[in-house]
């Protein structure tokens, strides 16, 4: 018994060390980035567009990257949400034939496991097809350049889709069967059951998925570098009001950090730190939101807050 206890203690100590070590690493990242970023961060940066300048002082702020980040998250989620919901509903509520359901699930796993740089270069190949030319910037010679918010957003939806799908699927799977039976017994169709009972019931799971998806989108760099055109400012293309923005190029916080860091052009490392800390704050905020939604759901388990479906 003694040896067992000794081993037990060792494992326990290992677990403690691992846990505390991870806490330390997380704290180090946040504190260091906070220290480096906050000293350069001033409110004006958020409201100024980037300027082309050789000096760090004259290079403006990162308003455009912020807008670009928000726009991309919006596009990505707008595309991913209906796809993920439909796929999850189909898998859980229909799922026949079962081999097809398995294929769909593994496909989504493949998408989830694909490195974002691979998704990015695949997107470039797709959006450079002349068929899709209207959706992206044209090079001056007339060739399809294949870079735009639409191109990046479409590929970003693939980044956001797996977490959204998984969250919705798990929510639906944990919805008890008797909830469905109750709706069917009231003479409701499958669609009405899904729309009025099941999806409202998994709203918090969907919210979790959306938040996870958004945080993955705003943290992604590879797709931006390949597909967003690499202009520091939003550069609308054409004259149609909103579409020109979507067709145009721009940047996000991640590409801004990359561009201004020593790895990129390295012209404004202070701005890079400031933007990095803003990015970090966003992602941490979103993770806290996920946590909050999950917690609220757990505390209300079985006592889910009623929803007005009128």
């Amino acid at each position: 018994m003694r040896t067992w206890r000794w081993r037990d203690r060792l494992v326990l100590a290992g677990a403690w060390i691992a846990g505390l070590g991870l806490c330390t690493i997380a704290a180090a990242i946040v504190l260091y980035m906070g220290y480096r970023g906050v000293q350069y961060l001033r409110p004006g940066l958020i409201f100024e567009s980037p300027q082309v300048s050789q000096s760090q002082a004259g290079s403006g702020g990162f308003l455009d990257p912020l807008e670009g980040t928000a726009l991309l998250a919006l596009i990505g989620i707008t595309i991913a949400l209906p796809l993920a919901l439909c796929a999850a509903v189909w898998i859980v509520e229909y799922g026949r034939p079962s081999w097809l359901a398995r294929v769909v699930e593994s496909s989504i796993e493949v998408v989830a496991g694909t490195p974002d740089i691979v998704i990015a270069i695949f997107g470039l190949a797709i959006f450079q097809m002349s068929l899709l030319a209207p959706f992206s910037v044209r090079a001056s010679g007339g060739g399809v350049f294949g870079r735009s918010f639409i191109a990046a957003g479409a590929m970003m939806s693939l980044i956001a889709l797996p977490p959204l799908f998984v969250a919705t699927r798990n929510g639906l799977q944990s919805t008890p069967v008797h909830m469905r039976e109750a709706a069917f017994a009231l003479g409701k169709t499958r669609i009405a059951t899904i729309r009025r009972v099941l999806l409202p019931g998994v709203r918090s799971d969907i919210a979790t998925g959306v938040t996870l998806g958004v945080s993955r989108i705003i943290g992604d760099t590879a797709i931006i570098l390949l597909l967003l055109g690499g202009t520091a400012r939003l550069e609308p293309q054409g004259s149609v009001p909103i579409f020109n923005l979507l067709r145009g190029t721009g940047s996000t916080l991640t590409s801004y950090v990359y561009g201004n860091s020593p790895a990129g052009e390295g012209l404004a490392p202070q701005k890079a730190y400031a933007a990095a800390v803003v990015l970090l704050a966003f992602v941490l905020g979103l993770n806290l939101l996920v946590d909050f939604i999950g917690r609220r759901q757990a505390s209300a388990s079985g006592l889910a807050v009623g929803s007005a479906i009128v």
Partner: protein
Amino acid sequence: MSFDKTLLNPKRTPLAESSWVTPDSGCRHTNGAEQHPLPNAFWTHADEQRPGVPSTAPGPIATEPNVPPVRTIVLDRTPTPVRPVGERVAVRPVHSPGGPERLRLEEVSISYGQKHAVKSVSLSIHQGEVLALIGPSGCGKTSLLRTLNRLTELTPSAARNGRILLDGEDVDELEDTKLRARVAMVFQQPNPFPMSIFDNVAFALREQSRKRPGRRELQPLVIDALERAGLYEEVREDLDGPALRLSGGQQQRLCIARAIAPRPEVLLMDEPCSALDPISTNTIEQLIGELRRELAVVIVTHNLAQARRVADKVAFMYLGDLVEYGTTEQVFGEPRATRTRDYVRGTFG
């Protein structure tokens, strides 16, 4: 109070009902203070205080400081007194008025793959009566119940033979959604939707069309359904509160309200009280007695005493066969089949 309507029903002869009281479903109250000074049938209101009988019975022993209080197990010691067990017969007609036939089962068989759950059952279910399906577990009574609104079709392996006629129409020729609105169902586990009380009932009433009736149009119907389920008084302040915050018995009555809101012709109940406490059970049994007037009720129950209390007709099933079908008095009093006699006397099951 909706009980009034029952008692004003001219078809009923309240005094004769006390003669129906059987030894075990009758007065259970053994302590003297609870003894009823008047015949049961005079009691019309469930929540009416009986004169001279306190709803809580603080015996003289309970007031003495050193003696631990004697706990008398009295059902109506709750804040909202319900009719004691012995009086529940007051809402029960002597015999079913024999309303029109609602459902007719002709040679209905159900099988799951190779397993035959129900074998060639023929039955007839009338409005105004409660049919109890009794029998040991696995005898096919729930399968039979669930096939009446074609809910078995959701089980891929289930197959059904024979005909089921709802008011003369073959249920297979009805659209399943229409059928299920006419043949409503209440399940064993209370299963309200995670939405507000109002929406739970309103959900049943809304058509699946693009034009959905608004809250103003639905409100009277929802309130009416809640009243018929005997729940409205308890939830009138909180119609927009979440349904899942109700107690188990209230949830089950909400499910009943939801089921009867579209005015179905038949109400199927799959052990509706097995997850509930005795007081809620009593309330729901009362409710079944009242609902019977406007629809046919089929109830599956494991609880023989309950079948005896609520049912007009009893069908005893064993291993998929319908062994015996008759009035409650006959099936429990003088069963024809040996199997039935053994079951109702508790020899097996």
